[in-house]
């Protein structure tokens, strides 16, 4: 060989490519920045401003409207108990974000597990798991939430775990179908057959050849689940069946404040609402950017 060999470009795996495309865009990085900002705000805020529902100071005056933002109380104060809205928002954010991420982790875990088993094993196991998913899809989840909210009141976390439990219980089916479909499709790919034709053991084919090629859609789905769960929590808490008011969440702050909206105290409803919107927006931006980055047709 001569010394004049071409210099090969730095090798890049498809995952690295996807990461580069994700950060090359505008939506993805900004979504990520907003989400990280919310995280820091909530984490630092809830350390500096702890909240104990059973130990709030006596209000200095009876005031239904609350007090608007001012120096020293940037998000204003609520009516009645004169709670600091900033304190409520940062502590509520902790619970809301936990609900979002626990739901995503739980339903992706169960969905991936069920989908992989169904896709690999096939046959009767596959039919059983998919019919089970159909059954879960048929049950209206709102009904179950209202029902369980009453039964599981003593679980702790003020109802947060009930919500996560129900969100996961009714959130895994779509993911299981997604993963199963992927596994079925990837199983028929020529490189899987080639690996079989060269004697590669089945477990290794499953882990190294099928799984890495099948999880793309799952990665894309994850942020949307986080956003969906946070919005659902707000909706259910608004109905009064979510997390009890002793544990603030963005949803139940909204629920309380909505009763007083007509008095014109926009800050009480505005700030938790803003955070729900921002979180939902940022995870959707991340999800969309991930989808574009992982889409093989958009490869650059």
């Amino acid at each position: 060989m001569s010394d004049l060999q071409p210099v090969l470009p730095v090798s890049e795996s498809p995952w690295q490519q996807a990461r580069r495309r994700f950060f090359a865009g505008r939506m993805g990085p900004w979504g990520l920045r907003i989400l990280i900002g919310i995280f820091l705000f909530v984490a630092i805020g809830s350390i500096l401003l702890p909240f104990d529902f059973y130990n709030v100071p006596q209000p200095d005056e009876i005031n239904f409207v609350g007090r608007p933002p001012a120096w020293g109380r940037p998000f204003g104060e609520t009516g009645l108990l004169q709670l600091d809205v900033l304190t409520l928002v940062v502590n509520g954010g902790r619970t809301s974000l936990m609900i979002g991420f626990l739901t995503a982790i739980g339903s992706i875990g169960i969905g991936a597990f069920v989908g992989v088993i169904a896709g690999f094993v096939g046959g009767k196991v596959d039919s059983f798991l998919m019919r089970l998913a159909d059954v879960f899809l048929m049950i209206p989840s709102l009904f179950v939430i209202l029902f369980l909210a009453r039964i599981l009141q003593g679980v702790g976390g003020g109802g947060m775990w009930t919500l996560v439990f129900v969100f996961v219980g009714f959130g895994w089916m779509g993911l299981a179908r997604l993963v199963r479909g992927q596994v079925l499709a990837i199983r028929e790919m020529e490189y899987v057959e080639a690996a079989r034709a060269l004697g590669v053991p089945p477990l290794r084919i499953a882990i190294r050849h099928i799984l890495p090629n099948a999880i793309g859609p799952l990665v894309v789905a994850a942020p949307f689940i986080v956003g969906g769960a946070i919005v659902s929590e707000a909706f259910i808490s608004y109905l009064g069946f979510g997390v009890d008011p002793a544990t603030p969440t963005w949803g139940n702050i909204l629920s309380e404040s909505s009763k007083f909206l007509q008095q014109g105290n926009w800050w009480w409803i505005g700030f938790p609402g803003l955070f729900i919107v921002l979180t939902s927006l940022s995870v959707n931006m991340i999800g969309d950017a991930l989808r574009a980055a992982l889409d093989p047709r958009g490869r650059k």
Partner: protein
Amino acid sequence: MVDVAGLNVSFKTALGTVRVVEDVSFSIAPGECLAIVGESGSGKSVSALATIGLLPKDQSIVTGSVRFRGEELLGRPESYMRKVRGGGISMIFQEPLSALNPVTTIGEQIAEVLVAHGRGNWKTAHEKAIGYLEAVEIAQAARRAKQYPHELSGGMRQRAMIAMALAGEPELIIADEPTTALDVTIQAQVLELLRRTTRERGTALLLITHDLGVVAETADRIAVMYAGQIVEEGPAAKVLRAPASPYALDLVASIPSYERRGKGLSTIQGMVPSPANFPSGCRFHPRCRFAVKACAASVPALEPRGADRAVRCFRADEIADGARPAARREASK
């Protein structure tokens, strides 16, 4: 070394069982190259997949005998076949881009075959994989080993596939249209490489192709398949120079050649019959220029012809003597 005898393959379909490969027999000696030639759907790929037990078991019925190193392979459990695949018989696929895992480096994919056949642990296998990439003449093999399939050219990918097939040090490599997806100059290089590496190692090569040019350059012997049967078999040079069966004759005549310039391309009338309704008698007779009544009535056997050839045709002797084709019948028939 590999002896396939009386191989039958049927597929279970919604319309009942359909036999797509019938009574296929061939054997390959170490270092030899046998080419199976035929149109799409003639059963050549299915025969190869049946040989290494890669047809879906719940949808296919394989009977006959496949003997490898003196052992019968048909009916063996999957665990036994896994040792044979890659370690005894390897396979190279047509489309190297889709036959390589897109998210794994090629070095790792070669190492995986080495580990699967106990030829090293994960540490040493990566080193050895580079050696195989060098064996298939990939420059800067150590760096290429760390690259992903999409970073290689088409020819290089197929070289990597060959390296994977060689990694288990098999005694037989089945190459299913290995050069169809490559352009002509690369085709010649890859074929030459495949032939040379297998000959050096004494590895037998079963080449499946529809390209007679590929056969002429590479194969020692040739088996022509039509509608699931072998219709002619023999040394590649002899069969291509003087085909004895009407189908092989027409196939060779359809190759564009310099001598025939200016004339129209020669074609074979009609279509390949579907396995669900093969014609009675000789399966080629509706399209055959030499067909007589007997051809529709009974199936000709694959008869030995000379020391090293075999032909499936009632009129092989007459054709060899220069028989005139019967008048063309209407295309509707």
